[in-house]
């Protein structure tokens, strides 16, 4: 019982000591895409202008924007998925409860098929 719930330290990796990229959904992908975006933007700017410091600035800006964009997109889809999971779980819980009653969606489906034929 003393060992229950102890953190597996080898399974957490915190960027800047705060962001646990291993356990927060979407964080790892966002950071990786952000790094890629930073590299592309920074390198592209340097190749176009040969200005080192300004390319680093662009790279930083690219990192922030790409990370934020991926994060918001991924979290939005994750939230939609969670809501769908909850609806399915509730449906599974209520299936037996509502069977053959007016709330049974299968009964409504069968009656629709019957009326079409």
């Amino acid at each position, binding site marked *: 019982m003393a060992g*229950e719930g102890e953190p597996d330290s080898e399974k957490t990796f915190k960027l800047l000591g705060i*962001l646990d990229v291993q356990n927060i959904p979407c964080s790892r992908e966002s950071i990786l895409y952000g790094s890629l975006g930073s590299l592309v933007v920074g390198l592209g700017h340097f190749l176009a202008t040969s200005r080192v410091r300004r390319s680093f*600035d662009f790279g*930083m800006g690219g990192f922030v924007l790409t*990370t934020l964009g991926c994060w918001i997109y991924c*979290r939005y889809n994750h*939230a939609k998925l969670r809501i769908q999971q909850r609806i399915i779980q509730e449906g599974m819980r209520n299936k037996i409860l509502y069977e053959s009653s007016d709330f049974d969606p299968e009964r409504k489906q069968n009656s629709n098929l019957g009326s079409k034929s």
Partner: protein
Amino acid sequence: MAHPLLLGFQDAMSPIMEELLHFHDHTLMIVFLISTMVLYIITLMMTTKLTYTNTMNAQEVEMIWTILPAIVLITIALPSLRVLYLMDEINNPHLTIKAMGHQWYWTYEYTDYENLEFDSYMTPTKTLPNGHFRLLEVDHRMVMPMESPIRMLVSAEDVLHSWAVPSLGVKTDAVPGRLNQATFIVTRPGVFYGQCSEICGANHSFMPIVIESVPLWHFENWSSLMFS
């Protein structure tokens, strides 16, 4: 439940706590990005050879550092308001339980059907069985059915207390002469711990809250047993 070296939240056991966890992750990512940018700007400032001491105005940079924080605040505020309003939704509770704070124990009242009332004192360390949690276990746990909306009415008999269970995302002040309401649904069976969260005297740290979430038929058996 809490464990040594825990820095983040406990695992979520209610839908509201899940939403709070997700909001926290979102805000943490924004904080991480801001910290990265600040570190980068500090590095830039320490490595530049350029100096200009006659700056009189800086309209462009002032526009940027006004508009950008406003956008950041809106990005944080919108999900925050969403969770705030979610917490206030009316959800037709199946059961109402009253929690009364005393110095230094809690009293739980289940008065929907029968008049069931019992006190919940902390188990002293001297009498704690081996393997049980020090300063967290109680003699009578508050048992509730899982997956049912529960209404908690929290008040106090003497001084201010606060009824808090972190894994459910609930913290409600117990104010003498006032009834505060909290509603939640426990999604999983288990035992969840909390502690009094408002300073209430010498033994403020020694009046924990323990919730035992069980299937409905278990709860019915328990309440029949307690009432008899």
